[in-house]
């Protein structure tokens, strides 16, 4: 899996969870850049990503996500493990 592919999937997931029709994510995107992505929905997004890829994150991994890129990188790491 490449980062672009993961990014594309993640974008779709975000669109579903946040109920948005249009959304464009880059590796540098953070929560402040996306309307509706806050501490309440954050966990739902993580859960949706986990379900899609059938991986499980740990809390101290999630905490270290500074942007979408970190999330994608972690997904790739889990998949190749």
């Amino acid at each position, binding site marked *: 899996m490449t980062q672009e592919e993961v990014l594309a999937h993640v974008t779709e997931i975000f669109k579903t969870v946040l*109920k948005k029709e249009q959304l464009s994510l880059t590796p540098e995107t953070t929560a402040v850049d996306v309307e509706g992505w*806050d*501490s*309440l929905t954050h*966990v*739902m997004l*993580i*859960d949706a990503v*986990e379900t899609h890829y059938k991986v499980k994150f740990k*809390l*101290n991994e*999630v*905490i*270290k996500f500074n942007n979408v890129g970190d999330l994608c990188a972690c997904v790739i790491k889990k998949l190749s493990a």
Partner: protein
Amino acid sequence: MLFTSFSFFIFLAIVYVIYWSLVKFRKAQNILLLLGSYFFYCAAAMPQNKIAKLLFNFRFDEAWYSFLKGFDESKWHMLQLLLLLWLSSSFAYFMGKTIGRQKKETTRKWLMALSATVHLGVLCYFKYFNFFVQSFVDAANTLGWQIIFSPEHILLPLAISFFTFHVLGYTFDVYQETYEPADDYIDFITHVAFFPQLVAGPIERAGHLLPQFTNKRTFNWERMESGISQMLWGFFKKTVVADSIGKFVTYVYANDATSSGSNVILATLAFTIQVYCDFSGYSDIALGCARLLGFELLKNFNFPYFSTSLTEFWRRWHISLSTWITDYLYMPISFNKRSWGKWGIVYAAIISFTLSGLWHGAQWTAALWGLMHGIVLGYEVLTKEVRKKWSQSVPTVLYSVCSAVLVWLFWGLSQLVFRSGSITKLNALWARICSESLFTMPYFSSVKDGLMWGGLLFIVEWIQRKKEYGLDLQNTNYMIRWTAYAAIIVIIFSSDNLNNQNEFLYFQF
């Protein structure tokens, strides 16, 4: 030592002068702040303490004499208090280093658990021991067991809730590897004890405050002006607005069996103004004071009464606490229950907020207050789409104003619960509201001054709502700025309330 007392001025002035004359010696500056903060803690923590009173009035020779004159209670209490602060911060420093060195996950977990147990254990002992035992006894008594319990006289150390959360947050951050363990011992314990934020917040994070201690300070005239103006604004809110309202609120709530329903409602709404002015005023003074010494503390209030939802409210009220609760309570719980979807969030919100309520006080009404907020927050999460539709079907201004009013009224209701202090009193007050006395004229004359100033405050803060604080006049013409500062000074010193200083409400935490 009240922030609005003359002695504090003198203390601050002395510290300020010595501090900036040592600007080339960062270490010396930090040591000065450490000693000053411990001195401040003694004077502030025990206003009735004989030695503290002498220190507070700068009668050093008498204080020293009292201190030496044998082993009396005042001296012992003071030592205990200082010891608690010092040991708490030292323990956190030590644990930070230890956890940081450990590579094995299980050992780290155990160390973290030990740390949390010690810090929370100490907090719970001082704060909740009597409460828990009394509640257990009450419950047992209603079931028929006769247990006699006379509450132990445990003196609640000032600020313990604040610095415990501060160091506990640091330890969590080290454990979760989001922050490197602190290197310098003096810098660490100084930043915990740093007097502007020690006694009533904001609850700082090591990541935010500690680097400011390890870096050199630079003197900056704009920051001096900003610091002083923010302090002035805080004084205004506290002495002119909050204190004008305090007596009336205490009066109505103290006479819970006889106050008219209309007075209870008026007092409760007035209390929302008082608690905002008192607490945010204190935060303004803390931030301004820290800025004078070259530090930036976390913003603690962002004009909360302009919020259009409770969720937004908690991003604007006591921000340092709600972010602490979010990061260290809400996140782990909601993450743990993420498979429940929205209900997991509701669950996490309810638990986090109920506990946050308890942080405020060892009473069931405090827990109930928290629970109320948790439930309404949960409601907001579940109804997000529906409310969005409503907001689009009416004019924006109407929707915003109605939402803001509703949020404020709900906040008022929760404050009624909180301020009542006990379930019996709450019932008494509620009974008054539901009686015919609700339709009598309330004592407007007793609060008209406070309400008038509150109204002025509202207007000023609305105009300034995009700024850092009400009197933030950074880019305005000097004529406006200086006139505004002079006007505020005149208003503060014209106030009758200066004669009768009321304690900051949040000091009891």
